[in-house]
């Protein structure tokens, strides 16, 4: 199933997002978005500039994956969550350094960088943001 191998050019293109949460800021209406879009989904303005989003936020909702797709077998069960960052922008990613029994909606988390997937023994390693509980 070649279609869900890790595509290196696409991962590379997105590194500023995956390592540093680079998003977009609408200079017309002030809306922040992740990822940065060409046109503001709120006001339609094309005046969008890049911005680094806050790295802390809270869990809006989550799920615990028991049946993984290819490439995630080793990590199962793992936790996926929608995070609302301090400025209201939402992102999606894994929670890490947490036991399923510890998760609660509304809990505060902070961004870190972790391995997301590894292409076997000889392929590339993809690192990206994950969120862990804030101490």
């Amino acid at each position, binding site marked *: 199933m070649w279609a869900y191998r890790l595509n290196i050019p696409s991962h590379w293109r997105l590194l500023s997002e995956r390592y540093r949460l680079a998003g977009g800021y609408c200079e017309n209406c002030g809306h922040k978005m992740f990822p940065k879009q060409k046109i503001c989904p709120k006001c339609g303005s094309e005046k969008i500039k890049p911005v680094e989003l806050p790295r802390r936020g809270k869990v809006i909702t989550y799920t615990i994956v028991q*049946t993984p797709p290819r490439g995630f077998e080793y990590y199962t069960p793992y936790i996926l969550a929608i995070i609302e960052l301090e400025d209201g922008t939402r992102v999606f990613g894994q929670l890490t350094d947490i036991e399923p029994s510890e998760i609660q909606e509304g809990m505060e988390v902070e961004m870190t960088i972790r391995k997301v997937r590894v292409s076997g023994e000889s392929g590339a390693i993809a690192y990206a943001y994950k969120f862990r509980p804030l101490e």
Partner: protein
Amino acid sequence: MQKPTIAGVGFTKITAHWKQSLKDLASEAAVKALNDAGNPEINAIIVGNMLSGIINGQENLGSLVAESIGLSGVSSVKIEAACASGSAAVMWACLSVLSDLFDSVLVVGVEKMTDVTDNEDVTSALATAADYDYEVFFGATFPSLNAMIMRSYAKTYNLSPEDFGYLPILMHKNAVDVSHAQLRFPIDMDGYLNSPMVSDPLKLFDCAPIGDGAAALVITKKDGAKNSDHLVEIAGFGSATDTLATYRREDLSRLRAAELATTRALSMAGLESKDFDIVQIHDAFSVIGYLNLEALGIVERGKAHEFVASGDAERSGALPVNPEGGLKARGHPVGATGVYQIAELALQLSDRAGPSQIENPNVGVAMNVGGTGSNVFVHILRRVE
């Protein structure tokens, strides 16, 4: 304006068809529909399918299907809109007929899922309906995204785990006597509650099964139909999109695209939600089934479980829902499902649905959901007197 009309219906049983290929299934359904329509001359074929490239290694299904039924030469394409590919194909067939450039269009929805045998591979293939860069890359599966919708919906309306069981239990009950259904056995609340977690809080019995199947329709105009004894009119249709990624939606406990598509379809049909006599919902996951009932304007938000629990959704109820068992028990060969839904409605509205036939319906609606509500299609069908 003459509305598009369904002149012929055909489909295969939904199951793991080990001996039949994608082409075999598509041609079986297509031939049945063509025969049912009295074999009119076909101007175009529109194939609804989601996963043939990734699972079967085969694209260009327009050519494949045309050739398989001896219609090479006819214009033919595949249309893809994730799990809503089938009804997307129906809608574009309707538009073709309405354009007056084509008289008769054959729609074939087909999905052959069991050619990959590892769960991880099927899970990965289905996940392509979500946002690859911002969801799937991080390990999102299609059930996991729907699980988050389920958790949000349950939290918003304070629902218990049991509340999500009413729909799958009804669907299994309905499918028992339906010969083309995939899961023809009843389940009870204990069985539902104790089914394994797929993606917490989503359980196995919240999920439609994986299966192969094909369904076909001949769409034409009433005046041009050869067999006029079982025609059903497509009175209205509408479709709408929402954000590809689930996390980019403000409210996870409703389906905006489903609401928009419903409004558009009702407006075209000149009808209201209260006019529905039978409903086809997209219960790929219990919560999505509930959200469909709410988006269709049948029940208030947060009340869908009460409506199903009350018995109103049963075959004999006030407003029967999926009398053949829906996606959960009739089956959900993803890209074919939308065509199955409309085919089931066409049979009901021409009193040909067999054991699942409800009493004298006049107007039916089918809602088909692509992604986690990112691409939704609604068709409203009406009996032709």
